[in-house]
């Protein structure tokens, strides 16, 4: 039996996505005043296009993955493996999203940048701290004072 390749897996996912998308397109209400093309026409066309393209993708020859994941030296579960770094970074972004308003831009950004740099393997703590504070504070003052973009001060007084 032939093994399913990654293009075929993606094609199935896209096919299912297009069916849900099309189903939702059919739920778009009709505008009371009749018009040649209503709000649902374009989504229906796009959904159908993806469905058709996913069929083409299914039969397309799969190439190699375009990025080689650097997994050397990480046997079994490793908190610092490249894949784990993507997961931790994603969690960091999410945490940042929920902390930026209560903690403030300076504190949340400094914490994220400093901790992630350490996690990615940067050991010069003092340089890390100085760079982090330099960048975050410059960014904060440029955005709030020069550009006029209000960033949350949070628990800090400025």
């Amino acid at each position, binding site marked *: 039996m032939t093994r399913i390749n990654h293009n075929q897996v993606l094609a199935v996912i896209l096919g299912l996505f297009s069916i849900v998308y099309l189903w939702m397109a059919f739920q778009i209400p009709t505008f009371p005043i009749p018009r*040649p093309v209503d709000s649902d026409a374009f989504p229906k066309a796009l959904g159908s296009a993806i469905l058709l393209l996913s069929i083409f993708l299914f039969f397309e020859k799969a190439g190699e993955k375009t990025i080689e*994941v650097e997994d050397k030296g990480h046997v079994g579960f490793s908190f610092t493996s490249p894949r784990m770094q993507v997961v931790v970074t994603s969690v960091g*972004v999410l945490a940042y999203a929920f902390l*930026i308003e209560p903690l403030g831009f300076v504190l949340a950004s400094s914490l994220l940048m400093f901790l992630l740099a350490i996690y990615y393997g940067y050991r010069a703590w003092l340089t890390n701290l100085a760079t982090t504070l330099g960048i975050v504070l410059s960014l904060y003052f440029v955005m709030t004072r020069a550009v006029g973009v209000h960033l949350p001060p949070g628990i800090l007084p400025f």
Partner: protein
Amino acid sequence: MFESFSSLMYGFSIALDPINLFYVFIGVFAGTIIGMLPGLGPISALALMIPITFSMDPSSGLILMAGVYYGAIFGGSTSSILLNAPGVAGTVATSFDGYPMARQGKAGKALAIAAYASFVGGTISVIGLMLIAPLLSKVAVSFGPPEYFALMILGLTAVVSLSDKSLVKGLIAAVFGMMVSIVGIDLQTGTERYTFNSLNMLDGIDFLVVALGVFALAEVFVMLLRGDDNKGEKRKAIGSLKLSGAEVKEIAGPVGRSSVLGFFIGVLPGAGATIGSFLGYSMEKRIAKDGDTFGKGNIKGVAAPEAANNAACGGSFVPLLTLGVPGSGTTAVLLGALLVMGVTPGPMMMETRPDVFWGVIASMYIGNVFLLALNLPFIPLIAKILDAPRPLLLAMILIFCMVGVYGMNFNIFDLVMLLVFGLIGLVMRLYGFPAAPMILGLILGALMEESMRRALQISGGDWSIFIDKPISLWLLVIALLSLTAPSLKKLYQKARTARA
């Protein structure tokens, strides 16, 4: 001609305003640094700078962005030459001879050639833009919704067909971009589409969230997965930046030819800096008597692609400013930035916003002067950014992405969406889906739908309106050809080999 010249003088009066000069300088400088970072090209550079332009006057904002664009291309050349790690696809060809020159201890010379060639390429493209844009604007005034719809289809298909990856994947990316573009309230009927009853989705998904997600954040993820580290890289000294008279004479021809070629390639939808630089390089390799030394540190091999890619950047502004239709992912981000600033480019822009139109053209010229006068002497210093520890750089890029996205609407939902699109961008990179067609689809999707609906309203629902109009018909035929040409060529070659 005289009219264009006096308009350009007006543009200079805007661009030479001290504050705008400052913005050009900041743009070129920041663009150079961002473009230098492997993986971060002009699209990321532009997207990262958009938040800075929020409160700016549109002409100043676009002047800054044009500087960033040029700077990013030049920055890409720097990392191509010094590290053999092109920051952008448009400077890959530069590395063929630039890196061997750097290994021979002639990095300074290669960088100087890149800067001079970029300057000439940029200058020629500005002259071309000045001459062609008004003519094209006059033609485009007669364009109606069917022509615009067809033009946008052509822009999309050209980008898809010219991307080096699979055609099907390119089309999927473009259609997906269009799907994202129609999320929110339909402005013509007030109907909600794909909002999942979320208030945050009513205004749709901002293009900056998507651009920063699929380009910058996804690039951070890719660098993490690759385990990129610059610890082991040792660069040779940059060396002298001076060129001899004989060397200047030697590169003069290639620079001139590649600049003109690059400009016209840039005007074409979908082509742009990458194809321009490769064509410039291969053209010079073929013409040169010492063509066999290309790839081994020939100075013409640096000059030609550099002149071509900068000229192509200028050329790509022609469809953006005159038709309001971007021909590449980068100009799509620029269009998005303009729309955010409340400026809609198109054939009427020269009349309605001459300050923006001519100000940008003049600032492109000034940007080139800045690149030459300021960046070149400081390049040994700027190049130190390549030695910055990768963990710090990655964490910094993350912060820049997030402040850009948050600063737009002050909404944490946007940050969550940034992550979602960052992960989508990562999957796209992992499985060979090009990101540029997605951004183009995102920017053009809503405009395409509007043109399509307007055209059908005019025709009373008759779809033949798209083929009844000759310009629209031709544009659609070219679009279809651009998609089918590669497959037809393959079939033809197969048939020929079978016959032989």
